[in-house]
């Protein structure tokens, strides 16, 4: 039975072996570009079509789109990259955290000026060090966290939608009235994510960073944790989303919204396409501005980026394909068909023709685009901070413990603080 005893000890080698095998299988041949892609809607499908166009113009290059779950991008890609393995290109959201693995493709671009003028504003999000002038990829879309409401339920309950400057408390009260009147399971649900949680926290006055620029848990953050836990205890929040998992595992709340289990969800602009596709004509929904707190009415900006990786076996072809995807025509097609907010300055100015978007989706895109103006500077700083996950992940794990009654809110806050400092300390070693 001794072999059983060492089963867990074998994890690291098993990992190496697995990675080795996967590399052998997925190793790009010269002229082959492997793209690791996740999709909220049809992003990878559209990318595959753009790739076919690229292949017809560059017959010597083959683009392979590997569509993977988001979890793979979050959990497995970083391990692969740390082991020196990985695809040529990936669609990532941990922009700063993975930046040390990005490949500078500036020498392979046809028109560097085009890149600077159209993607210059977000280029620093991908830079491994401040002030770096390399080109590592481009933002495939801008996103913003924000809420959606079920308008049909509000109409059925004859409750007016709170105004654009309404607070989280006012929204919670209104959504509660609607839930009671329409016998909906719960008033609200938030994605099980520290990133989503940060928006209301910043609105409630959380500074996130102290005077030295280090992460901190202050009164604004504490206030939001207490409120969030109380909302779970009084039934305002749907318990399943946060209590349905352990650890810091991500879980979205949009499924519960689509199934009519909640009146309001806090998610983000990337869900527009899914709502359009899955809700259809079942009910009317709309995106509403981020509710306010004591300090702001902010969500968190973000987005996904196409990045070239140092593990690329075909850097020339990788640069050429990214250059092709970044052209105005292709970027416009991608943004239009996937109903995403463009990060391309030229297109943002011109406006995207969301031809396939239904009126609800078009209105939601307008709401999110307009919301960019009310984003707090702290929200931008938080998004660009390399170790932002050091606060996001413990928040999810510890707040869940508090809302299921395992620990108190105060204990949860102390634990978030301790876990956060431990993680940053380890990451800086």
């Amino acid at each position, binding site marked *: *039975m*001794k*072999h*059983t*005893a*060492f*089963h*867990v*000890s*074998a*994890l*690291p*080698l*098993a990992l190496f072996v697995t990675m080795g095998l996967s590399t052998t299988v997925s190793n790009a041949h010269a002229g082959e570009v492997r793209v690791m892609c996740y999709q909220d809607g049809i992003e990878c499908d559209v990318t595959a079509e753009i790739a076919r166009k690229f292949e017809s113009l560059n017959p010597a290059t083959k683009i392979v789109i590997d569509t993977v779950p988001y979890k793979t991008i*979050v*959990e497995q890609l*970083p*391990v692969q990259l*740390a*082991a*020196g393995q990985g695809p040529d290109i990936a669609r990532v959201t*941990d922009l700063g*955290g993975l930046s040390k693995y990005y490949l500078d493709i500036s020498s392979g671009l046809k028109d560097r000026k085009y890149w600077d003028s159209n993607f210059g504003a977000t280029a620093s999000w991908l830079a491994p060090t401040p002030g770096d002038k390399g080109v590592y990829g481009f933002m495939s879309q801008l996103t913003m966290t924000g809420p959606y409401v079920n308008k049909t339920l509000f109409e059925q309950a004859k409750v007016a939608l709170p105004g654009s400057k309404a607070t989280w408390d006012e929204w919670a009260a209104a959504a509660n009235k609607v839930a009671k009147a329409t016998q909906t399971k719960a008033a609200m649900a938030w994605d099980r994510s520290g990133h989503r949680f940060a928006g209301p926290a910043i609105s409630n006055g959380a500074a996130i960073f102290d005077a030295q620029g280090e992460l901190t848990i202050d009164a604004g953050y504490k206030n939001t944790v207490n409120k969030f836990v109380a909302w779970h205890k009084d039934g305002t929040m749907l*318990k*399943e989303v946060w*209590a*349905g*998992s*352990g*650890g*810091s*595992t991500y879980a979205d709340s949009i499924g519960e919204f689509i*199934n009519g*289990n909640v009146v309001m969800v806090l998610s983000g602009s990337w869900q527009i396409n899914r709502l359009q596709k899955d809700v259809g004509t079942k009910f009317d929904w709309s995106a509403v501005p981020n509710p306010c707190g004591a300090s702001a009415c902010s969500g968190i900006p973000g987005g996904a980026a196409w990045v070239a990786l140092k593990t690329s076996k075909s850097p020339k072809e990788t640069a050429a394909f990214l250059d092709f995807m970044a052209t105005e025509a292709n970027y416009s097609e991608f943004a239009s068909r996937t109903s995403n907010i463009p990060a391309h300055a030229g297109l943002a100015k011109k406006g995207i023709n969301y031809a396939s978007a239904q009126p609800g989706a078009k209105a939601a895109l307008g709401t999110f685009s307009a919301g960019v103006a009310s984003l707090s500077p702290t929200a931008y700083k938080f998004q660009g901070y390399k*170790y932002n*996950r*050091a606060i996001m*992940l413990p928040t999810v*794990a510890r707040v*869940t*413990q508090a*809302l*299921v*009654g*395992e*620990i108190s809110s105060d*204990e949860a806050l102390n*634990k978030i603080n*301790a876990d956060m400092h*431990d*993680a940053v300390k*380890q*990451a800086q*070693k």
Partner: protein
Amino acid sequence: MRFIGFFFDLLEPLFKFAQKWLGIERLGWFFVGPNLLVFGVFTFLPIVINVIYAVTGGVQLIPFDRPYTGAENFQILFECRNYFDIQSCRKDVFWRAIFNTAKFSVIQVALMVFFSLVTALVLNRKIIGRGFWRGVFFYPVLLSPVVVALVWKWLLQSQGVFNALLVGAGQTPIEWLTNSQWAFFWTIFVSIWAHMGFYTLILLAGLQAIPKDLYEAALMDKASPLRTLWRITLPLLMPNLIVVLVLAMIRAVQVFDEVFVLTGGGPGSATTFIVQFIYQTGFAEQIHLYGLAAAASLTLALGLIALTLVQLKLTRANDVGQKTR
């Protein structure tokens, strides 16, 4: 047979050369060498790598890039202000995972052995459709743990089959997976449901090996069924029971896959077990604390070695007991 003979004829010169080169006393190494190589690469090397991770810090994956930190990871894991208050521990989730694993192992193994024994005793009798029932009880063993967990998740989720039945009967739905007690109960239930068939099979084999004449003698002596069970069946089944007990215990300590899919370790940390803690610390969190995960896995390995030693001791004691009888 002719082919095997031909095969060995082909190898004979190689063996002769090895014997001449190594000498007769060292020839054994020639035969066990390949096996040792595989064992070394896939068993001992991972242990060495694991120890390296456990005594180094940082978030780098390549061992050479990691700074040496000595016993720091173990200190972090075991640091508590008060060892009777989990909450006071720096890594309280590690201790919760240990507590949950111990609780799960004790309850699950006791119930598993009991139900496997009862099932084996029933299936050993001449009942109608015995073959069919044996198949029914063994069938879940053939299923992937992920499939088992997903099936039960669909039954137990808030809008699952069980709650639909409750609502249909005019009852309020139950939080099967978001209430800590219910979630823990279902992890035990699903685990027993999935694996009981395997242990039943082992016990059934043991029951069938007990000589029939002993039962005939007991019948002639008018021994009651309970006395027969207590004095004949259980003592003669003891070697199989020990195997079942130890296998079930090791499996329980290593529980991960089914529970991870079924509850994700939640709600909170109510069903977080030690292997899940290791996985989450090392791989699922985006700041990968490989050193901490490695230290926790070494701790688990020590626990499992202790269990294996207990098994060896029990097996030997049992062998000695049988020989003296």
